[in-house]
């Protein structure tokens, strides 16, 4: 090949890679612009704080927003302790032993399990085995053994567990060994080292992991399809404690979720074409929620990386 030909090749293929990267970015921007353009017209205060009316063809999406927030909070409360302690065990106690390797391998596999399989597991294990089991033992008339918020939250918690574990583990591994050794040299025990040296340093990584986990959990639909999401609920999943009149979130109730709302409105509602604006509005709310979470995770990461340097 002549030099000229080689130079043309060089420029062409570099340009091609350039083009591909920009194509992907262009698609991302196109998606966002379309959703914002079509969704912004619907969104106003009424849309955000009213419940759906007239067979879900009018009204707002407040129950869906409320349900999504409740389920995500419950999920993260369930997932953080297990995830962080797993990460602590892997990095600080297990070392490179067989058990540590097994745990690592199973977490990698957990991350690769399709989300619908989590849904199946949620139905088979949480609802039919655990829920019905509790009912049978306690003698309830089908109280736990049906789709409910608690089961959906547990299923989602399993789904986001790998995200939290991996980012916590990374953060803890990035704490220099010399710090640990210094603390050990001062006579600190292993737990004191973890609590007073490693965890404070890894705090930002854990937080990032939690945020990423939440943003993943907010958008997931398949695992909650059968574990607790409802098409339409006339009431919020709130339970008022008798006598004292304090409303609390009822984890045994079903709920409406944003992602499920989009799915059901776009495919199975009474008039899918006419309610397009509502669908776009709901999509915009969901996208805004996940993007804010993702963005904050990215900003956190950059900020803490700069500070740690």
């Amino acid at each position, binding site marked *: 090949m002549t030099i000229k030909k080689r130079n043309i090749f060089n420029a062409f293929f570099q340009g091609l890679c*350039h083009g591909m990267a920009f194509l992907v970015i262009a698609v991302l921007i196109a998606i966002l612009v379309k959703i914002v353009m079509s969704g912004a017209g619907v969104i106003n205060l009424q849309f955000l704080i009213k419940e759906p009316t007239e067979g879900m063809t009018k009204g707002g999406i407040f129950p869906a927003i409320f349900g999504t927030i409740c389920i995500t909070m419950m999920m993260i409360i369930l997932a953080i302790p297990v995830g962080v302690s*797993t990460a602590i065990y892997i990095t600080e106690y297990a070392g490179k032993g067989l058990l540590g390797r097994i745990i690592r391998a199973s977490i990698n596999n957990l991350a690769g399990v399709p989300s619908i399989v989590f849904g199946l597991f949620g139905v088979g294990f949480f609802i039919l085995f655990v829920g019905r089991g509790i009912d049978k033992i306690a003698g309830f008339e089908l109280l736990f053994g049906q789709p409910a918020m608690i089961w959906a939250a547990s299923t989602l918690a399993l789904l986001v567990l790998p995200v939290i574990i991996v980012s916590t583990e990374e953060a803890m591994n990035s704490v220099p060994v010399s710090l640990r050794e210094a603390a050990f040299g001062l006579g600190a025990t292993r737990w004191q080292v973890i609590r007073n040296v490693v965890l404070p340093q890894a705090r930002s990584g854990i937080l990032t992991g939690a945020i990423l986990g939440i943003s993943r959990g907010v958008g997931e639909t398949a695992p909650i399809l059968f574990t607790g999401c409802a098409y339409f609920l006339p009431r919020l999943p709130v339970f008022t404690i008798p006598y004292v009149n304090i409303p609390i979130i009822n984890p045994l109730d079903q709920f409406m979720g944003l992602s499920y709302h989009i799915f059901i409105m776009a495919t199975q509602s009474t008039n899918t074409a006419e309610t397009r604006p509502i669908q776009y509005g709901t999509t915009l709310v969901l996208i805004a929620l996940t993007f804010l979470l993702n963005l904050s995770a990215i900003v956190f990461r950059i900020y803490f990386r700069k500070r740690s340097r």
Partner: protein
Amino acid sequence: MNYTSKTSKISTSIISSNNSTRDSLKRFGDKRISDLLVESRNINVHKQRVREFIIEKLVFIGGLTAIVFIALIFIFLFKEGVRAFFLIKPMEFIGTHILDFDDNRVFACMWQPVGEPGKFSIVPLLIGSFLVALPATVISTILGVGCGIYLAEIASIRMREIIKPAIELLAGIPTVVIGFLCLTLLATFIQNVFHTTFRLNAFVGAIGVSLVIIPVVASITDDALRAVPSELREASYGLGATKWETIWKVVVPAGISGITASIILGMGRALGETMIVIMATGNAALVTGNIFSSVRTMTATIAAELGAVPHGSSQYYALFLIGSVLFLITFVLNLIAEIIINRMRKKLKL
């Protein structure tokens, strides 16, 4: 500095524990000082050991939870899936003999679980899944590897700092949103361009799914290429190679195992994707090789039917069997990818 204050906290706590022994010395003056010191230290050490032990066990239990749940997913899926074999003949999962319009007995692969008798062939579902996943893998391989090469080798540091988070943001879009856009916009567009008979078909689903796995392929390719030592590049430049020649003939071959792993992982994701395919592929269980035909994937079948199926019916167990098959396929793909990545790590001594 942050950690010095922490370490000093530890040392003060150790000193304070010594103080407390001195206090106890004053109180029990009739014993010999050295005895007391040893005794109290033993108590302290013992206490600490018990605490350490409890905490270690608690953390251990936390770590074990991950394994326990993986095992439970395995056990539950397969336990329920295997029961399908008690209710349905194994042959029926491939196909059954049915009477066609001329009353001839023909062998057909059909998924009609609600009919009487139900037909439970998983062949159309397998075909549907692969008809979506394979084109999606091809598209995302081309675009994802291109993006990965761009990020690792070509982009300036500033462009990289913009484009990498943007690709991560793409990965953060909920799949139900992509499915929704495929259903409303992309499907119409594809039909207008290719004049397909089905508005919702495997190709629409494949494009949607590829959007989800491009970020996976791109970021793993990026990591793999950046792990290639720079001496290789410099040697190649020194021999007079152009940038592209260096990328294509030196860097990419050196990182090929990582790229392969990313493609396999992407394919696993494509097979497991649910919301996009249920919204965009039309959900007709056909045995077809036509990419523009409606298909029904394994994931969409589970998602569409599990909600309405009576617990304990043969359809219920058949769905769990599909779930088991899906789990096995993705498990094997992930395992292969992990082995490749581990081998690469060893080779590059990371």
